[in-house]
């Protein structure tokens, strides 16, 4: 009885599956899909990363202009961090007054200071103020 049932199941299974008309699609249906996906994945990741970066830069700098994104100090100001202090040469051009010259006397010269002491009394000064000296050396060759 068991063998009969097993044979009957096998016979009917073959009949049902053989009735299925299967046509083999061309191999290209299998092959190019993988190559296309493999090539597209890194491109898609790079595109998504570029869009995310541009969106971040636009929102932080509040400007859609890429030139603005790469200007020095823009990102620091946008996120609330003070930009690094400019060099002394650029400081001379800025007209902003110095808040406390006594706090950092040696590092912050005052070229526009109206005090005439350094030129009048160059020798006995114990303070490390050296700002007037370049002016006096500049004047000597001219005169």
């Amino acid at each position, binding site marked *: 009885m068991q063998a009969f049932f097993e044979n009957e199941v096998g016979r009917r299974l073959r009949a*049902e599956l053989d009735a299925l008309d299967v046509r083999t699609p061309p191999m290209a249906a299998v092959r190019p899909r993988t190559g296309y996906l493999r090539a597209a994945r890194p491109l898609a990741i790079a595109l998504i990363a570029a869009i995310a970066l541009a969106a971040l830069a636009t929102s932080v700098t509040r400007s859609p202009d890429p030139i603005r994104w790469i200007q020095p100090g823009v990102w620091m100001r946008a996120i609330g961090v003070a930009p690094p202090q400019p060099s002394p040469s650029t400081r001379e051009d800025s007209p902003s007054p110095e808040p406390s010259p006594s706090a950092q006397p040696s590092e912050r010269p005052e070229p526009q200071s109206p005090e005439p002491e350094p030129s009048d009394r160059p020798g006995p000064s114990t303070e490390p103020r050296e700002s007037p000296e370049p002016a006096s050396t500049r004047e000597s060759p001219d005169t």
Partner: protein
Amino acid sequence: MATAVVERAYTPGSAADFDRLYRLTYPRIVRTLFAIVGTRAAAEDCAQEAFTKALRAWQTWSGDVPAEAWIHRIAVNTAISHRRREQIRALPSLLRRLGAPPPGRDPAGHAEERSVVAELRRLPPKQAAALVLRHYQGYSNREIAASLGVTERTVGNWIAAALQTLRSRMEIEV
């Protein structure tokens, strides 16, 4: 023995050999998958997915398992994954039906359920795969074991369990 000679002719990584394997096995793979997943469209999708996976791994096919059995293993695993996804998708409707009275049997549905393929779809996929490989592909239990990566004893148990379930459901017809 003749099969072994043919199998040795395949070279891992050879595009021409994979093309030949594809042409020789595609219809049989689709029929095997049809018996497991139950619909032609799903069987063709699974077959394409299985051959895509096989093509990716063709370089690493070691040859210790015949190429056709290797393809069958990939295809059966793909069909099992498909059945799992299908069960997960069907879970919400199953939960909605809980507690509701069972639907009446309509004659058309009853006729559909009489087919062996429809009954195979209600079996666990590994049991269905073992039964199809045994009774449609004509594999021995040893070949099925090599194809599915299990022991011969496990294959024998799966086939016996599948036949017992089918017998309880199809007793009227036999």
